[in-house]
């Protein structure tokens, strides 16, 4: 039998590396297996890294990690065909230590993070696919890779193999996705000079901004679009649930083209050179879709456990926190010398008491509500734009009358009762 490890971590994204790093730091013998050419080569995310969870793993990481810009402004657009109602917050305090969050490019960032793990003693193997978990009497005892002599053994296997976790499916923890449980997001990295980015987004060097766009950015379907500024490029992307895409017969790349040529968006990216095109599934099922996360000799972390808060576009932070919680459980289980499901269920308990599951629970019906009642994106966004236009157009009508007209236009378009119903339903979904 080949060498035995304390832990085998499948995947070198934020969840896998957080887990591998913490285990190795506490003296465990860790093997981490990544299918890509290097960590980050297969990973896709809009590009916002949250400071808090990263800092808990590597204090003051911003001093050495390859980050793009600290985010000092968050904008939200309710966009219609030729107009947009926007609000946002810009605060210079986010541009100073300890910062709030950062834009990042995943390829350099994940490589850096994985290297920190290797420095702690993680044995990282790239370009290797894990085909299945090896089990003995129902207990996971290792993994089979696609390489010759490819079986390796460990007390615990952590599945951090991403949203479409084939390994969790093989173990029967996961079912095939329903189309309303996942979003398909496509994005492009567009190269733009630093000066152009600073001018167009009203920023200075080392200041970044994020724009989340609702409404016409997805042609009124459930989903959002985003534009994030990097140092010398912007990430622009759009995602909707697969079910919306199927219903509206949308092609993801058409939707991205639509966004890029939208009159509200085009001036921001004009003249940029497309550097990369990426597409990825995002787990959006939320609370109801979280599978079994602990079994005999096995744990699930990050996207593989469907830990994404679609409403707040948080995922990498949940991945990191869950990876660390998995590591802490493994360290305790090692002390107990017990890697059974009962022992590893400590992870499930920590997870369910943490912000991760609490946040997912808070929004457990949000995606489903918005999916079922398309009026929020399809009707209210344009209504809001018309109202703003009416209110701000100077035409000699007294403001009080304008307000009355706006209120009337809301209720006459959808009916007073239905508007009240919609408001109550939305409030209930996110309260």
């Amino acid at each position: 039998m080949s060498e035995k490890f304390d832990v085998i971590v499948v995947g070198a994204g934020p969840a896998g590396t957080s887990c591998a790093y913490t285990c190795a730091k506490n003296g465990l013998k860790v093997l981490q297996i990544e299918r890509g050419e290097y960590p980050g080569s297969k990973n896709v995310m809009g590009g916002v890294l949250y400071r808090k969870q990263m800092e808990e793993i590597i204090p003051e990481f911003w001093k050495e990690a390859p980050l793009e810009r600290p985010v000092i402004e968050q904008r939200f657009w309710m966009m219609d065909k030729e107009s947009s109602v926007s609000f946002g917050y810009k605060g210079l305090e986010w541009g100073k230590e300890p910062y709030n969050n950062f834009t990042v490019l995943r390829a350099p960032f994940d490589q850096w993070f994985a290297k920190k793990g290797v420095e702690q003693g993680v044995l990282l193997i790239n370009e290797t696919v894990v085909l299945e978990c090896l089990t003995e009497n129902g207990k996971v005892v290792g993994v089979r890779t696609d390489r010759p002599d490819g079986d390796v053994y460990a007390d615990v296997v952590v599945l951090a193999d991403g949203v479409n976790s084939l390994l969790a499916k093989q173990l029967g923890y996961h079912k095939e996705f329903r189309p309303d449980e996942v979003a398909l997001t496509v994005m492009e990295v567009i190269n733009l000079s630093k000066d152009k980015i600073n001018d167009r987004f009203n920023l200075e060097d080392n200041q970044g901004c994020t724009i989340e766009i609702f409404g016409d950015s997805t042609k009124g379907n459930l989903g959002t679009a985003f534009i994030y500024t990097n140092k010398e490029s912007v990430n622009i992307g759009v995602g909707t649930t697969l079910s919306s895409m199927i219903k509206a017969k949308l092609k993801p790349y058409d939707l991205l083209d639509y966004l890029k040529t939208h009159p509200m968006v085009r001036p921001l990216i004009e003249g940029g050179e497309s550097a990369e095109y990426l597409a990825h599934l995002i787990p959006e099922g939320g609370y109801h879709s979280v599978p079994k996360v602990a079994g005999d000799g096995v744990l699930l972390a990050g996207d593989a456990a469907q830990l994404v808060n679609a409403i707040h576009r948080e995922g990498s932070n949940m991945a990191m926190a869950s990876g660390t919680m998995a590591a802490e459980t493994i360290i305790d289980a090692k002390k107990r010398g017990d890697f059974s499901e009962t022992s590893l269920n400590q992870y499930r308990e920590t997870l369910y008491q943490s912000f991760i599951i609490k946040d997912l629970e808070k929004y457990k019906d949000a995606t489903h509500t918005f999916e079922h009642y398309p009026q929020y994106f399809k009707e209210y966004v344009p209504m809001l734009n018309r109202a703003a236009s009416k209110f701000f157009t100077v035409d000699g009508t007294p403001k009080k009358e304008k307000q009355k007209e706006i209120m009337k236009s809301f209720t006459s378009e959808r009916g007073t009762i239905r508007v009240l119903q919609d408001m109550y339903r939305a409030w209930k979904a996110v309260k």
Partner: protein
Amino acid sequence: MHIVVCVKQVPDTKIIKINPKTNTLDRRSAPAILNPYDAHAVQEAVKIKKAIGRGTISVLSMGPPQAVAVIKKSIEIGADRGFLISDRAFAGADTLATSYALSKALERISKDMPVDLIICGKHAIDGDTGQVGPGIARRLDIPPVTNVIEVSELNESEKTILIKRKITDGYELIQAQVPCLLTVEKEINSIEYSPMPNMMKAAKYEPIIWSVNDLEDVDRTQLGLKGSPTIVGKMFTPPKPEGGKRLEGNADKQIEQLMELLNDKKELFVSR
């Protein structure tokens, strides 16, 4: 049997960009990889070791500290150990100074374990000169055999090796004495998918790194930029090849045109 394979870290020239102003390679635009011909050289050493059933494969490289990556890659393919010579004194070396430095490192390696065979790639894809391999052989006073496409037989007791070399219009079967130095073509073998134990060994492996002071009897004037008489006169980006000619018309017409073309260029088909 002790086989030493010389390897080089190169930018992946398949995707590298060229700075249009200076005509030099923009090295940041491409990842650093193990020179593809050298990967085949390592694979051939693994094949020979397997055929004989025993032996040691050492890899040797010269470069900056990050070049340990190509030694680790060689361990993945199946090498046993690796040496990197890395020193500011080696920087800026052309093929003459490089082959001098590598031959000094080979002398040091063979002091501990005599070398029976040296294998290099045909050339590095960033320079395409193919001079370092023969340069090492000349300095070590062993025969160089270039453009090898097959190692047909290795007789350990007779100390002979039978080799197929690629030449312009076919191949040549020759016998040489070992120790000798081979430079190999890509068609000599196909790179195998590395087994998991090799991957784990490579991930843990730390190559032996030598500075100039670790080498013996070194004439420092022959090292690095100082030891490099090569002058780059001019650099230019070669024009993109024009597309081929498309023959139009029905089958008979096309054949007629083709025969005309072949007749026009018949000197290309006359054997020497």
